């Protein structure tokens, strides 16, 4: 029952996860996980600690290879692609414990985020021909726009490590956006944020979706997740125990059992 | 045949020394996750101390041996206390440079104390070489093999039977967990440094009679010990011994059948091969960070 993605109606999904297995030693971190993300949708991936959410992120982005199963992005398998190649293809992410380039400024962080969308190599950089200069100027404009988008315009030249934590999260989102992704994976973006920052984040995520970007969100803040997601996928101990609209999932017995620790047979919806 | 046996003997002698040095690397790594680039310099200190205490100060062998090991271990602990513990950002690149700095510093100190000349001392027991099928086995070689066996058994017992040994293993497995159950972590690191550099001193003191000891002997010996440790599997006790012997024998065969000038290159080529092909070594299971 918690197996292959159910057939999608309407447009083709942007990301399909098919029967993905991943074990570490004896621990089955992901057990035949399968679901699909529709274009320009927001999917909340929830589950208790250790459910396998971050592992799934790492499998999708290519940090771990799955033991079995397949990941298809925009209709093609990305199994053999390395981490950076998947970014070029349009999969960007943020990290649970913000991983900014701390010794670099906010602006430079975004510029690194633009890496896959710019071309100049080592030799072009040394020669600094007009084309390279133009590309650099364009990249800086784009970076400024992105900083503006997350409200950090005035802090462009601040060291990212010196920014307050909430701003660092926003900067990381902007850096991921710089890769011009089709799919954005956000790993607990609200962790450590206060209520007003969380509200702002929610608006930002909806704004990003409006640009046609699909979002997969791991988040413990239920009110945020439930309010912005179109679809919720629930993992528990490496298995998918439920999938559906926020309302359906909230009423699901298996989900309640997983969160409250009661035994129940996992059922779909 | 006789030739082969002769190479095997000399390879085993060197190999035993590499094994002891490898043990020092391995046990420090397994309890602190650190590789001490100055380890070879402690071997050098062991050898030169031994020479000075016996040939210079006229001390008897056994007390000289123990004084040497104790002194070098104390120096190792001092090094940990002064140069490793105060490090605020213990990233590998910082620790590499610090321990490389320590290695150069100790080498320079060795040169100031003992000068640039090589020193030698008589073997532990004045017995004629043993003749086996026409190949000569030095009495000192037998000594070294005895010492290695005793050390291996001792370390094995230390880790398996004593509380301190178990605590040290616990620190290696999970620092935070060890701290929570009340294991004095800092003291364990200090002890690991003492033991590791003490092992280096044992290696140095044992080879002092069969080699010329000088201030610059440490770097190469250290690298070879590291090569042995990697070969067997870094962090594994028996791996270090196996790797050390294997390196010694391969090297001796290389000298015998290829060329003596490139003797040292054997070890480094082997090291690179292990790093590239099987960084966990022959016996190692620990996952090596290769990203």
């Amino acid at each position, binding site marked *: 029952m918690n197996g292959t993605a159910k057939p999608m109606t309407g447009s083709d999904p942007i990301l399909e996860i098919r029967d993905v297995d991943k074990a570490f030693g004896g621990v089955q971190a992901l057990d035949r996980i399968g679901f699909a993300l529709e274009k320009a949708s927001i999917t909340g991936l929830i589950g208790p600690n250790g459910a396998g959410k971050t592992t799934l992120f790492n499998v999708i982005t290519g940090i771990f290879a799955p033991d079995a199963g397949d990941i298809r992005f925009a209709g093609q398998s990305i199994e053999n692609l390395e981490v950076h190649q998947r970014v070029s293809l349009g999969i960007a992410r943020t990290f649970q414990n913000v991983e900014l380039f701390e*010794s670099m400024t906010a602006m430079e962080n975004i510029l690194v985020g633009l890496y896959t969308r710019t071309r100049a190599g080592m030799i072009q950089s040394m020669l600094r021909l007009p084309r390279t200069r133009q590309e650099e100027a364009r990249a800086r404009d784009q970076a400024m726009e992105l900083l503006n988008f997350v409200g950090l315009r005035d802090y462009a030249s601040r060291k990212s490590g010196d920014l307050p934590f909430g701003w660092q999260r926003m900067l990381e989102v902007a850096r991921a956006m710089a890769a011009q992704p089709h799919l954005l994976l956000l790993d607990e973006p609200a962790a450590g944020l206060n209520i007003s920052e969380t509200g702002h984040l929610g608006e930002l995520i909806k704004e990003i979706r409006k640009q046609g970007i699909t979002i997969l969100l791991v988040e413990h803040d239920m009110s945020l997740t439930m309010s912005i997601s179109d679809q919720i996928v629930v993992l528990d101990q490496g298995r998918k125990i439920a999938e559906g609209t926020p309302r359906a999932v909230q009423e699901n017995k298996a989900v309640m059992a997983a969160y409250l620790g009661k035994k129940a047979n996992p059922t779909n919806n | 045949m006789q030739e082969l046996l002769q190479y095997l003997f000399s390879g085993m002698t060197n190999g035993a020394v590499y094994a002891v040095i490898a043990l020092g690397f391995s046990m420090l790594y397994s309890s602190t996750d650190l590789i001490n680039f100055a380890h070879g310099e402690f071997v050098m200190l062991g050898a030169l101390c031994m020479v000075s205490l016996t040939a210079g100060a006229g001390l008897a062998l056994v007390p000289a041996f123990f004084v040497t090991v104790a002194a070098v271990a104390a120096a190792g602990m001092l090094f940990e206390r002064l140069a490793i513990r105060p490090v605020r950002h213990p990233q590998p690149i910082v620790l590499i440079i610090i321990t490389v700095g320590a290695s150069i510093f100790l080498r320079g100190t060795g040169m100031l104390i003992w000068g640039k000349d090589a020193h030698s001392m008589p073997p532990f027991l004045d017995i004629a070489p043993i003749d086996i099928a026409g190949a000569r086995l030095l009495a000192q070689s037998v000594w070294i093999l005895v010492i290695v066996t005793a050390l291996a058994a001792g370390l094995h017992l230390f880790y398996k039977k004593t509380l301190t040994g178990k605590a040290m293993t616990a620190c290696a497995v999970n620092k935070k967990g060890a701290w929570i159950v009340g294991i004095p972590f800092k003291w364990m690191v200090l002890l690991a440094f003492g033991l590791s550099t003490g092992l280096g001193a044992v290696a140095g003191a044992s080879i002092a009679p069969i080699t010329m000891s000088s201030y610059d002997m440490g770097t190469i010996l250290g690298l070879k010990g590291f090569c042995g440790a990697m070969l067997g599997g870094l962090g594994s006790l028996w791996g270090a011994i196996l790797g050390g012997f294997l390196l010694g024998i391969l090297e001796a065969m290389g000298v015998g059948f290829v060329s003596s000038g490139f003797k040292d290159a054997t070890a480094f080529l082997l090291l690179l091969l292990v*790093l590239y092909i099987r960084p966990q070594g022959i016996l190692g299971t620990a996952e090596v960070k290769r990203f």
Partner: protein
Amino acid sequence: MDDKYLPAIYTGFALGIAFLGWRIDNAYYLQLLIFIGLNTLLALSLNMLMGYAGQISLGHAAFYGIGAYVTAILSTTYQVPPLLALPAAVGAAMVIAWIVGIPTLRLSGYYLGMGTLGFGMIVHIVLREWGSVTGGASGFVGIPPLEIGPVSFASSKSYFFLVWAVVLAVIILCRRIIDSRVGRALCAIHDGEKAAAAVGVNTRRLKLQVFVLSAGIAALAGFLYAHLVFFISPGSFGFMASIKIVTMVVIGGMASIWGALFGASLLTLLPEWLHAFSEFEMVVYGLILMVVMIFMPRGLTRGLMDIYERYRKTHDRQ
């Protein structure tokens, strides 16, 4: 960042070189300045790798040696004009760096340190033992002075200008790389390799590229060294030489181009100032490495700058 001032800084630098070259006639001082230039090249080369990309090399003198020996063998044994030997020397080092770098740069941390150390040792042993080609442990004699077309660089003064023109050019090129897409990606690898890959940086390829570039600069320094002293021996390219380069970077500061100049100057002048220095050379280097790294892991000049910045910040707040 301070892009606006760079042309002015470069012009000032060039004028400084011209002034020194014009004023100084003493052969000893010129020689000293030339060595500072060569060491600056070496420090710049390692700094690109270690300071910016965060990848340690404990065998960097190997590339210095390859550069020196390739030009020595070509221009002496085979009578190749130095101008043709130059691309061969630099190219050889870069090709070797590329071949060695593919497996080596997959390693990280201690293993990378040991791997590069082992590589340096092997090159040193080959230079020492391959007597028929390299002259063995006693060294290689009779390297011709540098002549490029009709211009001869036999005099100290002309060599001084040549070396420092090269230094300035390399500084400009390094600076340009640092302030570019590639340079930022290198710094990103330093700050966090995982995150760099996650934003799309091909970390493996970039590390390899910077390793090859760095080897090329070191070989260039080796080429200039060989045609300066006319006699080279393996001893100049061993473990201590590699450590000396690391020390220059550590003093000058990780990821600081002008720091490389400072580190190279200090380590070239120190032995000249302290006559008894040769005895204590190793002790002093060792102490420098340990003390700087314990208290200022980003290097001496960087560390001092950080302290100043922190002071200013607390001062501003009051």
